[in-house]
């Protein structure tokens, strides 16, 4: 009886672990993608500011 409960508990724990693991992997990859996007946007903004400075200096 105890053995069966243990085996069932193990099965449930394994399924839960795989679900949590998958969700964690998705979240992590999403965050990394967004962080890269933020860096790209930051660089683009800096570039736009430099262009703006050049235009204003020329005017």
């Amino acid at each position: 009886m105890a053995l069966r409960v243990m085996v069932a508990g193990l099965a449930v724990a394994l399924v839960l672990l795989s679900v949590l693991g998958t969700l964690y992997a998705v979240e992590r990859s999403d965050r990394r993608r967004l962080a890269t996007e933020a860096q790209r946007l930051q660089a683009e903004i800096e570039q736009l500011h430099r262009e703006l400075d050049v235009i204003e200096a020329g005017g």
Partner: protein
Amino acid sequence: MRTFHDYEFEALIGEGAMGRVWRARQLAFDGRLVALKRVPYGDPQLAERLRREGRILAQLDHPHIIRVYELIPDGQGIAIAMQYAPGGSLADLLLREGRLAPSSTVKVLAPIAQALGSAHRRGIVHRDVKPSNILFTSDGEPLLSDFGIARVSGDTPLTAPGIAALGTAEYLDPEVVNGGEPNARSDVYALGAVCYETLSGRRPFEAPTPMAVLRLADRGRAPSLTGLAPDVGRPLAQAVAQAMARRPERRFADAGELAAALQDTLHQTRRSGPSEPARAAAVPHADVQRGEADQPSAPTMPPAPTAPPAASSPQTRAFGPRPLAPDSSPRPRRRWGTTHWLATALAVLLLLNAAFGTLLVLEREERLRVTAEVDRLRVERDEVREQRFEASPP
């Protein structure tokens, strides 16, 4: 007819490396039957062992311990005249019947436990309790016999080191195998194993070699008694399990306590009504006149699937430790070990789940923060881009 001192030999009933056993008649007492043991000439150690057995038996005055009548000097050797038990041994009975019903088992083994308890109270450890050393009188009364390797506390051991000198593997206390000193609890273990075999028809640990048996006993746990013999009640199964506990301190302190526990199970069975079918009684009632070869009443129980190996009583074989017969049975499952490992694996998995759950929450919070930051940067970029377009020349 050959005679020896006051005895007239009738038949050789056992012969082996450790000597011969004769059924003889004691002429001075109207030809009463005795078992006469003689060791071979020129073996002082065997002679000393027999002398010691005689001395031990003389100390023990119990109705369920075989009686010694006389120690007889025999040239350089020695002979011993003992109570003759014509009813055969428990091993013979198990060979015929397979197993005994719980009530019959208690009726046979509770008196043996009392006898063993009486020896324990005198500081005597039997060290070789097994079915072939439990004999029956003509009335079916059980007798504990063969104190050939028994030890009295404080005495110098006679036996040489080795498994055969320790006892019989199937009934040997794992503590003794691991170097522990044989004591009353070792006998309790052995009698517990005999109970198990008598109730189930199979030995607690069965393997092809004595060493494998000892390894199983040391590491494993015997298959469930109630699983093998469903008619065994829980109190009786618990008493057997306690007697056979792997750790000596969990066993009964001596055989007297085991006897009381066995008797209690009988009373509990009586109180709860007759749960056992009429097939129960199988204790022999051999007739002295028919001799030891006669069989008791017809079998009343079907043999168990695993028949015990051939065995004979110490009065029909050579005395001393019996060589072990190999037995091929599957290794019993180590349920506790499996449960232990499963529980450990479950605990590790639960910890991993908790860790991943925490990481997931933290990661999600971080992603939300970065998402907000990206949204803010997009707005900022759009604003700067607009300013740049407005500032650029047409």
